[in-house]
């Protein structure tokens, strides 16, 4: 007996993960031991180091195709591309978290989360410039979970990653300094429903394990070739899909999205909307094409239906929203549908242009939506953000720059040419049509037009309406938010006008191993 053989572990291939988890661990220590005065800059630095380091690591790893950690992790093009994307979005989100110029109390996060909202103590603290910094290690953990999610080659790792990314997000949702009731409500809703969804995922895992005897994706694929139609297996697949679709806010598992997006601190919402979506779709791609790629006929109609449902629900329900964040939440639901269109466009063997298209779309959408939420933090009324649409009337006259950038992001979300949104949409629709799913593409196009209405409505309000007499003020952002908005706006334009190199990158990275 040799005892337990040490699993092969390629530390190099895990470098991105090690960076963020390292940053998270260090962050926890800093939280515990560093004096309050220096905590904020140090935490920001650590979190940024982790995210940027991870991003650099993914760049250096480009071209790696290996399965490591005893087969539990697949470090391939898709994983690295999405990890890089998540790292970038994470770094930008951390910058948004660290903004101190906008809120009069110098931070968008609550000083002491445990103090009951509305209590005397809470009122005292709401103007206190004390900053709670636990959000940074939490973000790092979530970031690590997301990156792990995209590389998980094993259902168990996938589940653990799911929890690692979710648990911090539940907490972060509840950390808003203003409108704490809403924030706490968002947290509790997100938590309960998230846990509920995890249970489904887990039950699916168990059924698949029972059907195939393994939770390794490659093993499942091998088993699925033999018994693709096994009821236990497809039932398991269905429950796994439910768990993942919840994270990706695909209708009908989207119900938490508007509430949580609206209630959570805007910077956290930005992080969730951008990075979680990428991670969730990373896992979806891996699950469907690595584990069930050979049983593709079982889930294709399902994903087809989910895509249509999500697009229609997102577009139609978005029409009558009156809150910017909520509207962007429904936009997120519709975009999940568009992304599923790309997933459909992957072709039976996972080849096809759909993979690269979906990856590009995730990058483009993530950056745009991050930028849009970033701008939402700037429009303020009283002490908090002004998110009601009526407050945005005539914004172009108060701040032409903010209005113009918001206009750009909205046009990108609507998919107008010369923005990244169009390139992404073109890529996924092309993939869908190329694999014969043109009816889906047509539905997608029609819902795009419907969805365009609510983006346009915001532009109409900003540009063509007269500002309300006591409308909101537009805060002067500090450096971090400025960087975020500038980077995302530039990316939105560049990916629309000259997307060639990034498309190339996505193309060359469009390889799944495992």
């Amino acid at each position: 007996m040799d005892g337990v053989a040490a699993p092969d572990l390629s530390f190099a291939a895990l470098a991105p993960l090690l960076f963020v988890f390292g940053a998270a661990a260090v962050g926890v220590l800093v939280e515990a031991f560093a004096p309050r005065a220096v905590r904020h800059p140090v935490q920001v630095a650590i979190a940024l180091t982790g995210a940027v380091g991870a991003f650099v690591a993914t760049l250096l790893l480009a071209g790696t195709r290996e399965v490591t950690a005893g087969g539990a992790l697949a470090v391939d093009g898709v994983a690295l591309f999405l990890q890089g994307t998540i790292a970038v979005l994470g770094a930008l989100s951390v910058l948004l978290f660290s903004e101190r110029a906008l809120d009069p109390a110098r931070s968008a996060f609550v000083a002491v989360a445990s103090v009951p909202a509305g209590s005397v103590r809470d009122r005292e603290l709401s103007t206190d410039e004390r900053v709670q910094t636990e959000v940074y290690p939490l973000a790092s953990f979530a970031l690590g979970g997301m990156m792990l999610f995209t590389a998980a080659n094993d259902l168990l790792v996938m589940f653990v990653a799911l929890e690692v990314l979710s648990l911090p997000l539940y907490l972060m949702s509840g950390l808003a300094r203003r409108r704490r009731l809403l924030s706490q409500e968002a947290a509790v809703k997100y938590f309960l429903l998230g846990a509920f969804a995890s249970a489904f995922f887990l039950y699916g895992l168990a059924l698949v394990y029972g059907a195939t005897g393994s939770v390794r994706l490659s093993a499942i694929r091998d088993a699925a070739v033999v018994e693709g139609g096994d009821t236990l297996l497809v039932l398991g697949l269905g429950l796994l899909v439910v768990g993942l679709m919840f994270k990706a806010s695909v209708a009908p598992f989207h119900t938490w999205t508007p509430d949580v997006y609206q209630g959570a601190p805007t910077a956290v919402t930005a992080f969730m909307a951008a990075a979680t979506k990428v991670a969730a779709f990373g896992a979806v791609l891996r699950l469907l094409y690595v584990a069930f790629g050979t049983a593709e006929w079982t889930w294709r109609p399902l994903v087809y239906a989910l895509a249509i449902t999500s697009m229609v629900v997102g577009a139609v329900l978005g029409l009558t929203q009156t809150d910017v964040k909520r509207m962007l939440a429904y936009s997120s639901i519709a975009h999940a549908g568009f992304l599923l269109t790309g997933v459909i466009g992957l072709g039976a063997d996972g080849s096809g242009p759909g993979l690269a298209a979906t990856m590009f779309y995730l990058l483009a959408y993530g950056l745009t939506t991050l930028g849009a939420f970033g701008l939402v933090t700037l429009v303020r009324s009283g002490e908090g953000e002004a998110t009601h649409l009526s407050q945005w009337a005539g914004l172009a006259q108060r701040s032409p720059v903010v209005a113009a950038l918001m206009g750009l992001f909205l046009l990108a979300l609507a998919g107008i040419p010369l923005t990244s949104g169009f390139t992404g949409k073109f890529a996924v629709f092309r993939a869908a049509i190329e694999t014969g799913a043109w009816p889906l593409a047509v539905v997608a196009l029609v819902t795009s037009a419907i969805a365009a209405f609510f983006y346009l409505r915001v532009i109409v309000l900003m540009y063509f309406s007269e500002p309300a007499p006591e409308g909101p003020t537009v805060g002067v952002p500090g450096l971090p938010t400025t960087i975020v908005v500038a980077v995302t706006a530039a990316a939105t334009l560049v990916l629309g006008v000259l997307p060639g190199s990034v498309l190339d990158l996505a193309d060359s990275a469009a390889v799944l191993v495992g």
Partner: protein
Amino acid sequence: MTDVPWLLLMIAVPAVGAAVVAGLPAAREALARPLALAVSLLVLLLAVLATVAFDTGGDRFQLTTAVAWIPDFGVDFALGVDGIALSMLLLIGVLVPVVVGASWHETPPPRPGRGPRSMRAFWAWLLLLESLMVGVFAATDVFLFYVFFEAMLVPMYFLIGSFGGENRQYAAVKFFLYSLLGGLVMLASVIGLYVVSNSQLGEGTFAFDALRQLEIDPGVQKLLFLGFFVAFAIKAPLVPFHTWLPDAGTQAPIGASVLLVGVLDKVGTFGFLRYCLPLFPDAARDLAPWVLVLAVVGVLYAALVAIGQDDMKRLVSYTSIAHFGFIALGIFAFTTEAATGAVLYMVNHGIATGLLFVVVGMVIARSGSRRISDHGGLAARAPLLAGVFLLAGLASLALPGTNSFVSEFLVLIGSFPERPVHTVLATLGIVLAALYVLLMYQRVMHGPARGVLAEPDAEPDAGAAPEPADPPHGGGGATAVLAAPAPARTRRVPDLSRREVAVVSPLVALILLLGVYPQPLIDLVTPAVEATISDVGADPGGNTPQVGVTPIEEDD
């Protein structure tokens, strides 16, 4: 001459101009207007030079430029023009300076209790629009065309939404969504085309010349054709896809209305000719009967609806819809004569209806109302204005001697041998055209002074003033206002000012010149038209009567 990238320059110059205008500091804002004029005149010069460099007997596409743009999608930034596209570029070149002149005193909609808003944005959007319009006609890559096609919506959206009439938000959104919906349906076809090219040529491409060679299955052709067709039918617009135009045309500021109806909508008919026919010849032939029904219904229906309008801009918008019916008839009759007529119609309609919109704008600037019923007897006060109004109207009803006659005549005479029934019905439209034009003219210009003119006036004959000044109410926001409250002082109605004369003169001259001697323009477009007609599988040689050979069908 041919080495100069004329088309690229024509896109770049106004785009740069737009950026410069938008970037002007507030203190130098007064420069925006002359700058816009200078840029638009420069584009006109470029268009003329490009025409000189163009060889009518040469290749189908000339003045080509091509740079790889998005290699992953097989997209090139490929520009080139045939005679049809070139004639549209000339039209743009002519109309934009006119629009700049006509919008010289344009003012943004009033803001209660605040100072006037900056007009910089107006001029910047206008120039950007010009750049994109050039691009949409000059693109020879379908993807690039699509990009311009959609991007063009944005400046027009802002022109209508920011500077339009009282109902501008509704009109702007309606315009945008309608066009976007059409565009997205077309996108499906564009991608479909790419997919077909990918399977047939081994690599996907959007190059027009390559796509033209494809052998597409008829069923697929029909679907792809419909995708393009819906987009273009909304743009053109054909009944029943037209209801956005009366709103947009009415609410837009006059300058934008001119470009909207004069140029933007031509993208639709241009698209029929450039894309629907050559790329999907079988589908075009199969579906032509249906399209022709839409065309003829449009001619009669829109004309009748126009007769019932009381809003001048709305009326002119409906007349345009009727005219687009004629153009569609000419295109889908598949004869060289008719298609040549359709292309000429596109140019001539831009000039004639452009002038009509400009003049209507001048009337509105004087009276402050778009309602016909608020006017009457204007001819006595402003005879020159009345004369130009009448000329524009006559051009609109295609009176011989005006440019529109040539095109309408060609469309009808060319369609008749192929489609006698449709043509006969469409010909009835010329009576209706006379009715809507003359009704409007009579109510506005003839009869005793009425409406705002009937208000007390210090000088009974304002036209007698030696050099009338610019109309006191500016252009503008006012041109889009339905009924402005009457000012306290009495109303003078000056005749055309020097600026206004300068604005209308080029169009008046073109209307007459192209009415009497259209052959150079015909020579310019005929080769491209013939190529298109042979693409669709018809004989480009034109009508070849077979007298005495076969029994001749009776007239129906």
